[in-house]
């Protein structure tokens, strides 16, 4: 459900980035710290570097910006996972009243409730429950469904592939469609050119960005299934059944991303290094693809990266419209049925998915932008 929550997210990041730039600009670039001298430049390089303070061995390893980046990023991932796991654990304990009683209903006999509580370990002290929970998680044990009695890991194993397929396809579509579109729009409308095109693009993308995926989904179902009868309404049967859910999921994020790409490209085209590139009299294609695009992309990822994580959760709504047999339908059903262990497990899986996407986004950013690895986050 990226669109309903996204505008604030997008903006927050934008400001953040501005602040970041400010910081990188004040910091002075360090140069000449390597101890390796160039064979062809021995005379020039030697004296300056030889006496600057330098630390050998382990510290030198830490001196590698990539290792430091990896260490820092890994640390952040671990903290996030811990927060996620703890959050999932606390979620159940924060529910007012007795979750087991709530799940089994008021008519359930007291003995059954008590037995269930005992089985779930709900009568143990909190810290012990927490320790047990962590231990079980490490062993791959997500608990047992209160309703079906099946292990939660099995339920997840059943449902995860359908959701993952959907998310990955939508992810790919959104990225692949938005970048060329945004770039082309930026080039076409730069410097106030082609006002009508700009108006059409901006208003169209605002509209698409605002409509949440479940409404897009309903619209798509109406047009393609009800009116035209082209695609199956629901279920996961054959490649054609993927078209509408993937579209529904990707359209919103894609249009937001395309807007960001356009805005960032326009900003980059104003940059001084683009003027340098033009002063070198490079052909336009080279200016746009070699100089503008990589910079616009790094900016886009910084600003829009969280959007892609949001798509993971967006599957919930799309799945419910298309009766897609994934985690999304499972979690909603489980919440309504108060099957808390399942909810807990699915939330955990979604959370991990989001963290994974964010990690991929950060690594992509680091690869694209050499400065980001030395940037503290």
């Amino acid at each position, binding site marked *: 459900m990226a669109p309903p929550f996204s505008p604030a997210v997008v903006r927050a990041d934008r400001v953040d980035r501005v602040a970041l730039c400010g910081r990188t600009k004040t910091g002075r670039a*360090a140069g000449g*710290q390597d101890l390796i001298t160039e064979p062809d430049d021995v005379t020039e390089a030697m004296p300056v570097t030889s*006496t600057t*303070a330098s630390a050998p061995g382990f510290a030198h390893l*830490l001196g590698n910006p990539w290792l430091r980046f990896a260490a820092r990023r890994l640390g952040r991932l671990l903290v996030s996972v811990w927060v996620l796991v703890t959050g999932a654990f606390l979620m159940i304990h924060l529910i007012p009243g007795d979750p087991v009683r709530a799940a089994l209903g008021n008519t359930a006999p007291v003995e059954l409730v008590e037995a269930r509580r005992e089985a779930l370990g709900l009568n143990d002290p909190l810290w012990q429950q927490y320790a047990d929970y962590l231990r079980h998680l490490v062993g791959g044990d997500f608990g047992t469904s209160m309703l079906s009695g099946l292990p939660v890991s099995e339920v997840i194993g059943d449902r995860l592939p359908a959701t993952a397929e959907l998310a990955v396809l939508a992810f790919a579509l959104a990225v692949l469609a938005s970048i060329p579109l945004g770039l082309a729009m930026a080039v076409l409308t730069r410097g106030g050119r082609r006002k009508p095109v700009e108006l059409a693009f901006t208003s169209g993308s605002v509209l698409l960005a605002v409509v949440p995926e479940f409404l897009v989904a309903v619209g798509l179902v109406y047009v393609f299934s009800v009116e035209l009868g082209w695609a199956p309404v629901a279920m996961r049967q054959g490649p054609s059944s993927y078209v509408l859910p993937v579209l529904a999921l990707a359209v919103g994020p894609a249009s937001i991303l395309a807007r960001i790409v356009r805005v960032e490209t326009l900003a980059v085209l104003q940059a001084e290094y683009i003027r340098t590139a033009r002063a070198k009299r490079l052909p336009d294609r080279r200016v746009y693809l070699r100089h503008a695009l990589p910079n616009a992309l790094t900016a886009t990822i910084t600003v829009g990266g969280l959007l892609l994580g949001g798509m993971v959760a967006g599957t919930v709504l799309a799945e419910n419209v298309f009766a897609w047999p994934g985690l999304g339908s499972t979690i909603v059903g489980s919440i309504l049925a108060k099957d808390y262990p399942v909810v807990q497990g699915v939330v955990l899986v979604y959370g991990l998915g989001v963290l994974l996407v964010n990690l991929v986004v950060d690594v992509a950013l680091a690869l694209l932008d050499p400065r980001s690895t030395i940037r503290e986050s």
Partner: protein
Amino acid sequence: MSELTFEDVTVRYGSGRREMTAVDRVHLTVPSGAVVGLVGESGSGKSTLARAAVGLTPVAGGRILLDGRPLPRGGRRPLQMVFQDPYSSLDPRMTIGSSIAEAIPRGAVPGAAARRDEVARLLDLVDLPADRAGCHPAELSGGQRQRVALARALAGRPDVVIADEITSALDVSIQGTVLNLVRDLHRELRLSMLFITHDLAVVRYVSDYIAVMYLGRIVEYGPAESVLADPRHPYTGELLAAARRGGPQAADTVPASVADAEPADPHHPPTGCRFHPRCPVGPLVHPDRTVCRDTAPTGDGRPHRAACHFVSSAADPAAA
């Protein structure tokens, strides 16, 4: 009118791997009623020293004293500061009158009418008509804003005013106005001032004493005429050479290794004398001067002192 003293002041930024010492064991005195000009290249720690003095940046070591006593923590602030960028130093949402009024110590001027008069007096002091008090900063030019910032600093009834590059963001045609004002204010109010700039010519015009800063250390300090006429630290010499206008520069008198040396990285300052990788009279040129690499030079206690093992002055027989 008071004497401001920095005693062995150290300021650090960041922590762990990214820690850096922006100001390193600085001794500096702003004598009562005098203007001390602090020059140095950007990143040498001038602003950090200023921010530490007014309490915006915590001090990692040493003491900052006013007339021999530590600065008071609350209440009236005897130190005031004027910042470089006139576009960021005034709240765009406040009239300049209320910006100035805010800085008037509580209790100093009781009553709304009296405060208004005080604001008018301060505006007049910086050559702005009193009726400008109702203006927002957006309606003023850069030079006018800088004068408002000066008025705000004076509103705090300071004993010492610190001016951090207050002319460098201004257009050339306007810098002169602000410098004239600084000089007039100093003469009228006999304020002690720490005047920070990177331009030696500007410093020469307003200061009684000059302190030269390099990579977090004061490398030369002395009466203005003496420092300018007889620079003892090679870095001061370089600054002077760069500031000397007219005619092409004699850059070829120094060896290429020195002329093209890179500015040092403040995160990894050079050992010994911090200037040695760039010094035209240091170990690069005189290989026997290894002491520069190993031992940090300190200035002696004389009124005009330089932190250099090979102080270059004809007037100083101690130097070889």
